[in-house]
């Protein structure tokens, strides 16, 4: 379904010289109906990898294939139209655009209030209070995050990418978030890739990929990777959810 071949990504300084390698020769494959969690320490290149898949960043080297097609040179819009979806780590605010507007844009059709309410209920928001709300600074981080996830549900892409869905949300919202992903896991239609530090999310995964220092450090079935991951990180409680 999705294949990354020898992906490298480097940032350059003002003179154009290569300043830092963010990703180094990353190759991985994500199969149909696979729930993948990409994890690893901050600064390891996880979010960059997600952005490369969506086309928000372009690799310095390497190839990205989706359903057998080389999408490396395609724009964000073209990738979205092929069926890739992306939920931002920090949801974007829009003055003037309402929750209903954004969910309609995500769904690709004008949604009526009932449909909007349905999607909002799925992410635990009391729908009536939100349909007409502007997606602006008046919404809390947790509310924005859940609306961001509702947009992905409304969009129903072939491949969904969530960049740290747990970041910036309160503990109460987090419990709901886990339920949303558990449900997504049960009703999975296409591959879901989640960038996360959370043990609760790692536990839902079919496969876990560990990215550190720009490389794939470990990859495999959850039961093979997770126990070692918890041992390795144990003392700092990195994956126990204390970083929320």
């Amino acid at each position, binding site marked *: 379904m999705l294949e990354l071949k020898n992906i490298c990504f480097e940032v350059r300084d003002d003179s154009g010289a290569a300043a830092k390698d963010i990703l180094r020769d990353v190759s991985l494959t994500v199969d149909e109906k696979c729930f993948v969690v990409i994890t690893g320490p901050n600064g390891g290149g996880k979010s960059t990898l997600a952005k490369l898949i969506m086309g928000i960043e372009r690799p310095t080297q390497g190839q990205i294939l989706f359903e057998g097609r080389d999408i490396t040179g395609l*724009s964000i*819009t073209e990738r979205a*139209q092929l069926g890739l979806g992306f939920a931002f780590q920090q949801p974007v605010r829009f003055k*003037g*655009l309402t929750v209903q507007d954004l969910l309609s*844009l995500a769904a*690709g059709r004008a949604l009526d209030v009932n449909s909007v309410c349905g999607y909002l209920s799925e992410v635990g928001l009391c729908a009536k209070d939100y349909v007409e709300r502007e997606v602006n600074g008046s919404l809390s981080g947790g509310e924005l995050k859940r609306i961001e996830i509702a947009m992905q549900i409304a969009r129903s892409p072939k491949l969904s990418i969530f960049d740290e869905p747990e970041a910036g949300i309160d503990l109460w919202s987090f419990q709901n978030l886990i339920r949303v992903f558990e449900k997504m896991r049960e009703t999975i239609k296409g591959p879901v890739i989640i960038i996360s530090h959370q043990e609760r999310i790692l536990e839902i995964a079919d496969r876990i990929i560990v990215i550190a220092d720009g490389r794939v450090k470990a990859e495999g079935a959850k039961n093979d990777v997770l126990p070692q991951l918890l041992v390795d990180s144990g003392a700092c409680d990195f994956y126990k959810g204390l970083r929320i």
Partner: protein
Amino acid sequence: MNEVDKSLLSKISGLEAVPPGAYNLRVNGSSAGRADSENVSIRPKDDGTGLDIHVRPGTRDKLHIPVIVSQAGLVDVVQNDFFIGEGADVSIVAGCGIHNDSHAQMRHDGLHIFHIDRNARVFYEEKHYGEGLGSGENVLNPVTDIFMEAGAYMEMETVQIEGVDSTRRITRAVLGEGATLIVREKLMTHDSQTAETAFEVDLNGDDSSANVISRSVAKDRSSQIFLSRINGNSRCMGHSECDAIIMDNASVKAIPEITANHGEASLIHEAAIGKIAGEQLIKLMTLGLSQEEAESQIVNGFLK
């Protein structure tokens, strides 16, 4: 009215036919229809310069005062006085549409003066729109003077988003004790259009308050100037906000001025000018929109 006039009327007021209730329809400098309602009377001034509109105290009503300019080269000047009786609650739909297929400038200078009595409420809506294939300029220069007695309340919504080459908009208000004024302005300029909008609010009565909110988009080579002057002359609250999206080679100037002449005046001004945030475009592109479609959605939402 011909089809052009009917289309303009629909665009500025949403009217497809003669509205129910009190109205005056001004087409090319003269009245093309007028009606009173039980509690609203609309009378031409003796000197022919405009209308005197009286709303009886304590009544609820809605009235329409649209203006159409479609005659080549016309410069239309009018002064309408609104006398809103004590405790009345009225909604007023005004606005002006210009259709210019000529090479001559066409202009409407409308002065609206509101005398709002004690505890009366006014919701005032004004849309401005221009169109036409001619090279002549479409010019609209509205002036609104508002005098508010104790406890009076007014909301004013103005929209100008297309086809007006030049506008100088002046809104002045004097508020008495406990009076409240809320102004929401939506403005878009494109090509080489210019727009100047100036607010001057005197908060004279204790517990009076004013909130002036402007959202604008400047495209192409157009230019905008936003001036907001709020004078706190009593124990009062004043807030003005100018929020502008700038695109292409446009220019936007925001000039805030708040003056406190009383120890318990509380005044705030906020102004922000900037391009569309890149992350907003990217977000909408991840939903499958092209960059142009994303820009359009963001601008339309901003001015909604």
